[in-house]
């Protein structure tokens, strides 16, 4: 046997090229219609569960509708009432904004801090990672919302602990100035989810960068500012957008802490809570739809601004060259 018989040379020349092209063309042709078969449930869902309801909700936002009588077109009345004649609406906007602005940065700072800490730990990293992540799953439950309400209640643990330091705030849940912070606390407690994402981001930064910086005499702080921060900025941005969108929609803890009605004195009247009350308790579906649409527009606008601003501070390594 000669060597040439073993590594069979590939058929070359124009004929083979054509055969190859035909095979590729057939591959492409074959792949067309099955794709739509795979996508059938998705397409039905996109139309029936997302697009049509969106259109209907937009329409309803220009109507007065109580679920029993046919919707009645009122033009911009819902929007006008919301923006100019409804102090409770603005109350809910401000409460939600206050919550988002306080809870999101705190949660992300804690998540980043924890991720940096865990990165330094050699032994037990997996254990800590899982343990810190656990609250992110439990925190969304009714049970834990009830626990937080009890912890921050009058005579609850937080009150007692602060009392031993001579700080007497009383129950946070019943205090209009503090009730929102119970929801904030519950949110911050769930820093594990963004932490895990940060940690994955940190692990993708090449250790060579740190080695090189170390050789150049850069200290820990300098390395953090010049390597960690820019390399991690896409992940920071991702977490920021994600947490912000989620925070705007917070419901269960707000419902539990407020006793279901935004109390005390409307201080925990979160946007979604007010929307629920308008739509499902007061049967003003048109008004609630208008609220939902302004929420969508607000989220879209904030996200768009964040994307714009991100160009100034988010660094993508593959774009640098």
């Amino acid at each position, binding site marked *: 046997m000669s060597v040439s018989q073993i590594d069979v040379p590939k058929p070359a020349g124009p004929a083979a090229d054509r055969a190859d092209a035909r095979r590729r063309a057939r591959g492409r042709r074959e792949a067309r219609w099955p794709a739509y078969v795979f996508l059938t449930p998705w397409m039905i869902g996109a139309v029936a569960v997302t697009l049509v309801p969106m259109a209907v909700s937009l329409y309803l936002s220009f109507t007065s509708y109580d679920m029993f009588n046919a919707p009645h077109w009122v033009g911009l009345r819902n929007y006008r009432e919301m923006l100019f004649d409804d102090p409770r609406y603005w109350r809910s906007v401000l409460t939600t904004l206050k919550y988002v602005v306080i809870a999101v940065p705190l949660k992300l700072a804690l998540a980043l801090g924890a991720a940096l800490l865990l990165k330094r730990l050699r032994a037990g990293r997996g254990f800590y990672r899982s343990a810190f992540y656990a609250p992110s799953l439990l925190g969304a439950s009714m049970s834990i919302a009830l626990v937080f309400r*009890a912890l921050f209640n009058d005579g609850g643990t937080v009150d007692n602990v602060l009392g031993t330091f001579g700080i007497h705030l009383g129950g946070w849940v019943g205090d209009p100035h503090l009730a929102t912070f119970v929801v904030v606390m519950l949110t911050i407690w769930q820093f594990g989810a963004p932490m895990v994402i940060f940690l994955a981001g940190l692990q993708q930064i090449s250790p060579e960068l740190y080695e090189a910086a170390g050789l150049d005499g850069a200290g820990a702080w300098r390395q953090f500012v010049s390597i960690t921060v820019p390399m991690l900025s896409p992940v920071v941005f991702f977490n920021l957008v994600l947490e912000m969108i989620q925070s705007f929609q917070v419901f269960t803890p707000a419902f539990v802490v407020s006793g279901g009605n935004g109390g005390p004195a409307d201080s925990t009247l979160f946007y979604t809570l007010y929307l629920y009350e308008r739509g499902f308790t007061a049967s003003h579906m048109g008004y609630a739809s208008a609220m939902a649409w302004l929420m969508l527009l607000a989220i879209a606008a904030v996200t768009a601004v964040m994307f714009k601003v991100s160009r100034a501070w988010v660094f993508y390594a593959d774009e640098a060259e």
Partner: protein
Amino acid sequence: MNLTMRRWLPHTVALIALLALLYPLLWLLVTSVKPADEVVTSVNLWPSHFEWSNYSTALDGVSGVSVTRLLGNSLLISLGAVVGNVMSCSLAAYAFARLRFRMRGPMFAFTVATLMLPQHVVLIPQYIIFNKLGMTNTFWPLILPKFLAVDAFFVFLIVQFMRNLPRELEEAARIDGCGPFRSFFHIVLPLSRPALITTAIFSFIWSWNDFFAQMIYLFSPQKATITLALRNFVDQSSTSAYGPMFAMSVISVLPIVLFFFVFQRYLVQGMATSGLKS
């Protein structure tokens, strides 16, 4: 000295943080066995004696509906969500990740965009539709949409995973005359098991924890889930029933805790990959 400090400081900080983090869970466990008069008044975390009857009270359920029934309802809805999401999202994800078709770009962009869509925008019309179909106070509104791949997060997650599978296997299969259906079921789906498990666990836990949708669609006590029952518990009883209420709370988070211990590797991994390569 300095070296030992450097080695032990991070561990100390991590342990203290962990203690603070787990305190609410410990509090929940302890309170669930506290006697009624100690729940509100006592400053001690530890009870003077264990009041196991809290659990038997909790097992009696709410409004004459037993906890078994409530857990069964939650379980049915959550399992429905698991089956629906795994099936429909993996089908859609395969098309987006592996097949070529004209509308792929715009359709996938739409999926990613719905990640940002607040559910409140579609909630009211969905409610009206299900109401017209006579499906309120049934589990259908909570299960049916899951069979239509509307949880964009999962489609996205599985797409990310499938994109990273080697193409060679499918190409080899195609040369052997294997069409996209067979390569989906016999090659890509088995290889995607980690992503499917992640989808299943998150579907289960999110469904189990859900409160908003369940509250809107389910109103008879027989249809209530454990989450809804807990909330009714709060409404019905004074603070003297704190013990039984938190006993029921423990029962209601038990499945999540269990899932967490068994599948934590997938959960943490799934969360981590969602943030990368996006």
